[in-house]
């Protein structure tokens, strides 16, 4: 009986360590969730709060950060200022839109680099019409000065007209 209790306790401790210790993958997932939160907008967002969110979103990305979106002919590096300006513009165009990442998987080809595949889902309203959209993203995160920062965003164009 004692042995069983000890085995259960060891398993519980191992599970707790696994759940509580912040691994690289957990840190990157948490950054993705934060990014989604900073990109999301509510119709009642105050200007100052919006600016703070945009600045925080920018700080999660490297400077410069590569963005590739073939459908919109975008394929270049954006510096921090440019990136935050574009995020601000997007937030103004999409008030009341929720961003969220789903089906995220990642692998680590190097110790300081993570290749992420994820789906970005947008739900919101445009002129009182509910809309939903989803895009698959290939993201690269790099560990720069001890911090995981997103260095590249590529929209995966899996549907070709």
């Amino acid at each position, binding site marked *: 009986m004692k042995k069983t209790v000890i085995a259960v306790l060891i398993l519980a401790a191992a599970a707790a360590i696994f759940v509580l210790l912040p691994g690289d993958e957990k840190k990157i997932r948490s950054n993705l969730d934060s990014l989604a939160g900073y990109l999301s907008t509510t119709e009642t967002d105050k200007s100052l709060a919006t600016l703070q969110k945009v600045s925080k979103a920018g700080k999660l990305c490297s400077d410069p950060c590569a963005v590739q979106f073939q459908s919109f002919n975008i394929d270049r590096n954006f510096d921090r200022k440019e990136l935050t300006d574009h995020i601000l513009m997007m937030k103004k165009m999409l008030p009341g839109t929720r961003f969220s990442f*789903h*089906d995220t998987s990642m692998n680590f080809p190097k110790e300081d680099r993570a290749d992420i595949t994820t*789906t970005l889902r947008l739900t919101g309203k445009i002129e009182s019409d509910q*809309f939903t959209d989803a895009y698959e993203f290939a993201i690269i995160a790099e560990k720069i000065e001890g911090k995981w920062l997103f260095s590249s965003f590529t929209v995966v164009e899996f549907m070709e007209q």
Partner: protein
Amino acid sequence: MLSSPPTPVPSKQLPRIVLSRKIHNFFLPSLDARLVRRILITGLSCYLLFSYILIPMRIQGHSMEPTYRDGSFAFCWRPSYLFRDIHYSDIVTVRLSGKSTMLLKRVIAVAGDTIEFREGILFRNGKEVSEPYVKYRMPWNLEARTVATDHVYVVGDNRGTPMSRHRFGQVKRNRIMGGVIP
């Protein structure tokens, strides 16, 4: 040890008592190892069934209207194409990076077919295709193109939006997750 003789039960009442016991045991079973095993097996079966084989989906968006309306509910039936090929007019689910977000589209052409839209009318291999499921139609124009090997061409039923705002095109066969029920 004291014992009392069992109370005699009239033979006509026996089936009723057995039935009521069965009903009682069904709705209020005693918590024993057998029940726990049953619950675990049922839970695991449901998890496997609804996670990998018959995936419930809430439809969001208007691209498949009027066949599937925004907010309606359906299932993705994964084994649909295990034993048969994808046919014209099949409604399929197309995965993105996983199975929690999928696109619902209709197959209009398979590998090797040539398709084009002329004023909203679909032409496959040069012949006009009747599409009774399309109720809203805008004058889409798309030059003829051939579907690549190992691809299928999918489009939504709601053609009432401008072509630039509708996501459609050829997708790799391995992105098709399955068919749709109902």
